[in-house]
Every structure is written in structure tokens, then in C-alpha cells.
């Protein structure tokens, strides 16, 4: 991690991804007026702050060889809880925010326990979690709840100038803090390394005497917490709670993580990669909006095609340099 020598094979997918992102940005800038601006770049962060936060949580899950399908629904549930507590129960944000954060954390913890103690497959447990969280949203209210509160409006509309008339939002700051914390956790704490070990081989991790159970539960708790935090950011972004919020977001998140170079089988990947993955999904959308002539269906086809382009190029770059490498990898 600290060694510069490692900057070769392990980081390659990440470097390839960043490279592709830059190519895409240049392409957009050449093709569309108004694309090449700092604000367009910053908008990627503003619009995807919540996605970055969930992707960070998801990265840990996927690194450990698991998967978490509940993230989108937890965002919706968090927004719903925050909105109903603020508007219906008239609680102050000092209470609302911690309670809302607990929602995902507790759900994540419970899912982690089910996975660990009853040896259930993460896919199914989190799928049930996904149904449950969305269902709970509708139990609170089927309609969307608008949030009209000074604090939330402040968080939503405060612009932090970064020079040149460009700005970012508070959510971006939060997201960046989460990313930095996550990178630290992944590489400089025992928990982080245990996650990687678990993803490499659960059986080996167990035989090496690592606290597999604790780590697993913690991973899902962290992912739940990240989802809830993303839910709060999402609430700032939307200023409302709604049961249909973030529908299908889990797949976007997984895609972002995987595009960022993390292996779904676990054990290899980087938090930073996931951030780039999110930015890539974001820039694909931006390009399509700037294009502005695509019908609904061509939009979908274009997203698919760009995604394909990315993934195949990434594969080709990685495969190319793998063959030039001297070591055999066993996977």
C-alpha cells in the first residue's frame, strides 16, 4: 500500500478506468459547447454525491465477496423517515439526522447477522431487505412528503464557492469525507484488511483466526450506514421523502463499483475506483443530456453502448498489460 513498486499490476484496472474517464471528458468537451467547464465536472460530484457514498459502502461488501441489494430501498426509507419525522412529528434535525442514520445501520446490522448466523446467501437476505425497506416506506406514506425546514433548505441550497464562479454543495464535502475515511479504513485498519482477506477466501480467513463473523456483520452494518447517509444526502438533494426514490439504484451502484475495478468475487479492488466508477456513470448521462437529441429508447441503447465501450476497453487494456507481466495470476 505504501510501496511505490506496487503501482503496477494491482492498480492497473484503476488507472485504466481513470484514463477512460479522461478520454470521455475530452470527447464531450470537443463535441459539445459548454461541456468543457469546471462546473460540469463539479456537477458530476454534486449530482452523484449520494451515489458515491453508497458505492463506498458497497465496495466493502463486494470486496468481502458479498452483495447488498438493499441500498436503494434504504435510501428511500431514510428519506421517508427523515421527512416524516421533520414534517409530521415536527422533530428538530438534531434528532432527525441521527435517527435516520440509525435506520440503515440497524437494518444492515440485522442483515449481517442473518447472513452470518444462519449462513444465508447475502443476495437473498439483502433482496428481502430491499423489499422490506421499500415496503416500510409505503407504510409510512404512499405519497411523497415535502420537507420544508430551514436546516434542510440550508443544506440543500448552500453553495460553497471553489473559485471561478464555480461551486459545490455541502453534500459533496460529506461524500469526500466519507471517501477519505473509507480509504483509510480499507488500508490502514484491521477491519479493512480483514475485509480483503474475507473476500480472498473465507475459509482461509477463518483458519487464519480472523474474526470472520464480526467482520461480516460489520461490513453489512457499514453498508447500511453508508446507505442511510446517502439517504440523508439524497434528502438534501430532493428535499422530500418518497417511497419510489432511488428505485433500481442498487444496480447502478454495483455497476459503478465493478466498473471501478473491483472484482465481484471479492478480494480485489479499491474505494477510489468506485468513485471513478460513479463519475463514469455520471459522465455517460451528462454526455447523453448534452447530446439532447436521443429519444427515450435511444437513450437506453446509448447508455448500454457507452457502458459496453468502457468495459471492453478496460478489459482490453488490463488484459494487454497482463500478458506483458511476468507473474501468473491464479484467477
Amino acid at each position, binding site marked *: 500500500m505504501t510501496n511505490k513498486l506496487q503501482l503496477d499490476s494491482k492498480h492497473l484496472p484503476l488507472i485504466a478506468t481513470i484514463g477512460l474517464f479522461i478520454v470521455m471528458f475530452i470527447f464531450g468537451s470537443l463535441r459539445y459547447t459548454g461541456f468543457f467547464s469546471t462546473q460540469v465536472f463539479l456537477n458530476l460530484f454534486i449530482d452523484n454525491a449520494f451515489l458515491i457514498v453508497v458505492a463506498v459502502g458497497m465496495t466493502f461488501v463486494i470486496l468481502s465477496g458479498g452483495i447488498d441489494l438493499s441500498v436503494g430501498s434504504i435510501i428511500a426509507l431514510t428519506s421517508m423517515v427523515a421527512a416524516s419525522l421533520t414534517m409530521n412529528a415536527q422533530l428538530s434535525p438534531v434528532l432527525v439526522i441521527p435517527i435516520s442514520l440509525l435506520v440503515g445501520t440497524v437494518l444492515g446490522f440485522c442483515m449481517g447477522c442473518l447472513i452470518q448466523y444462519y449462513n444465508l446467501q447475502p443476495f437473498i437476505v439483502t433482496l*428481502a431487505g430491499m423489499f422490506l425497506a421499500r415496503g416500510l416506506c409505503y407504510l409510512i406514506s404512499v405519497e411523497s412528503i415535502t420537507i420544508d425546514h430551514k436546516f434542510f433548505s440550508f443544506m440543500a441550497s448552500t453553495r460553497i464557492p471553489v473559485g471561478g464562479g464555480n461551486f459545490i454543495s455541502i453534500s459533496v464535502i460529506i461524500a469526500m469525507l466519507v471517501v477519505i475515511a473509507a480509504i483509510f479504513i480499507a488500508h490502514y485498519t484491521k477491519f479493512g484488511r480483514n475485509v480483503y482477506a474475507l473476500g480472498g477466501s473465507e475459509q482461509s480467513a477463518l483458519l487464519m483466526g480472523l474474526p470472520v463473523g464480526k467482520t461480516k456483520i460489520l461490513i453489512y452494518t457499514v453498508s447500511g450506514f453508508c446507505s442511510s447517509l446517502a439517504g440523508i444526502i439524497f434528502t438534501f438533494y430532493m428535499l422530500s421523502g418518497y417511497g419510489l426514490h432511488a428505485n433500481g439504484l442498487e444496480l447502478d451502484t454495483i455497476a459503478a463499483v465493478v466498473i471501478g475495478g473491483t472484482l465481484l468475487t471479492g478480494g480485489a479492488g479499491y474505494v477510489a475506483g468506485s468513485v471513478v466508477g460513479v463519475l463514469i456513470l455520471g459522465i455517460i448521462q451528462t454526455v447523453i443530456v448534452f447530446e439532447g437529441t436521443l429519444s427515450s429508447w435511444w437513450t437506453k*441503447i446509448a447508455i448500454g453502448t457507452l457502458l459496453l465501450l468502457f468495459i471492453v476497453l478496460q478489459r482490453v487494456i488490463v488484459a494487454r498489460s497482463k500478458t506483458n507481466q511476468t507473474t501468473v495470476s491464479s484467477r
Partner: protein
Amino acid sequence: MKSKLFWPIVILLIILLINLFFDKNFFSIEVKNGYLTGSLIDILNRGAPLLLVSIGMTLVIATKGVDLGVGSVIAMAGAVGAMTVSGASGDSLVPLFTAIGLVIGISVLTGIWNGVLVSRIGVQPIVATLILMVAGRGIAQLITDGQIMTVYYDPYTFIGGGYLLMLPFSIFIVAAVMAVASLLTRKTAIGLFIESVGTNPEASRLSGINSKNILLMVYVFSGLCAGIAGLILSSNVASADGNNAGLWYELDAILAVVIGGTSLNGGRFHLMGTVIGALIIQSLTTTIYSIGIAPEINLVVKAIVVLIVCLLQSPEFRKKVFGGFTAKKIEKKSEGVSVS
């Protein structure tokens, strides 16, 4: 194998019995308009597309993959099928067979697409098939021009709405596909190869198995199953809806496979288990509709049932809950991890 099927069957029966509680005639099957009708037959009929998709999905999952594209393939197949017969009328069967041929062609093509991405280019299955999941729906809408295309050609509606020997025709399609899948995997080496590639791809490669072709084949089969399911769905409502047909089928199919006892980590697969898993999901849906559960809590109910199903299948859970009464019996069966 036997014990793998036991709990899914029990759960299926429980769900059906709950229905009986609300509707005394739930199990009765009567002849109406010359057809057999009854809730059980409805479940089979309605569940046919999910059954098909799940059967295909089982093989994909056995290779440690997953196919998220099935929903979109359903939409594309429906669109292609409906478009082919849209102008047709009368009783000529030519358009019907053209449609079937085209649908099979298209769905095999989608399978090849996914299979090549996964096996030749080495893209991770979830992302490889995500591409088709996104783009496929666009293609389906492109074909139908964003409209819901209605079909006024009776032979087409036979596939998903017709009857044969007093039973819905779709049941026969499922039975045929299931038979083919079972034969291919149990009477040829394909099943063995799928399981070995799914468990340890490198060891399989060194044993001279062409794992790339196996991967390609399972994705083609999954695409084909989804295509036929799309044909049934579109034929059943005599229309094609590019945007909504087959939405979320991928998740239900994966759920069915897992409930049926096949692990997402690849390896051993259980086709019969999948069938029961799919029936559980369909019965649950039908039950929710017919006993009048409010739509707002549909999802909560579904979540709880899924959890219960999974917990019942977990030996650890059974031990904890039933351990008190039947400790002795279970201990003998279990892997020897002592209870105390």
C-alpha cells in the same frame, strides 16, 4: 438432493394451504368452457414465464454467473413477435412460425452476445448482462416505437393463451423446456461440465474442458428461455409493451433459483428445486392478489415470506428453533457440529 427439495415443497404447500383458508374451493379444478380451470392451474399458467426464465437462470448461476438481461430479452422477444404478426390476420400459420423463428433467433443472439462478453472478453457476468438489461429495453421500444403494440391475430395468442388437452398450452411449453434441460444436463456431460466450471474454472480448464463454450452455452440457453417466456407473455395479453414487459423478472428468477437450493457461488444446481422456487413466488403473488392484501404492504409481505423461506432452509436456524424438540434426530442428520 432429496433433503434440498423438502423445505421448498413444505413452504409451497403452506402458501397454498393459506389460500385454502380464505377460499374453500382453492384446490378444486373444474371443467369450464371445455377447459380445466382452477387456481392451481392458474398459478401454473401465470407462472410459466417465470418458470422458463428461472430454468435458464439456474444453469447460468451454476457457472457462478448471473443473467440480468432476461427481463429485457422478454421485452425484445415480445416486441419482435408482436411486430412480425402485427399485420397478419386470418388463419394462415405462416406469420406465426415466422414470429416464433424470429424470436428464437433474436433470443439466441442475445445469449451469444452475453456469452461472448463473459466467456471470450472476460467481463464479469453481472456487468456484461447489465449492458443488455439497459440497452435491450431500448431496443424493444425501438421496435415497437414506444407504443403498446396490439395483436389481432388469433394463432399468435394461442402460444400464451391457448389450450391443449384441456390445459393451458404454456404449461406444455414449460414441461418441454424443462424436459430438454433435464435431459441435456443429466443425460449428457453438459451438466457435469457446468458444475465443474462453476466450482473450479481453472481446474476444469486443465482437465481439458472448454469452459468458454460451456459459458457461452448457458447464456444462450438462458436467452432462449427468456425469449420463449417473452413470447408467452406477449401472446397472453396479445400485445407487446417494450417498456414494461418482463420488468424485474431477473430478480424473481434469481430468487426462484436460490430458494430452489442452488447456490449463487456456482457448482451444484437443482432444476427441480428451481421449479418449486418459481412456483412459490408465483403462488405468493397470486395469494397476495386474491386474499386482498393492501398494495402498500405487498412488499413487506414478500420480504417476510422470502426471509422465512430462507431461514427454514438454513440448518443453523432449524437447529436453533426446532432443536428443543427434535434435538436427537437432527443431530444425527447434521454435519456433526454438536449443539450443546
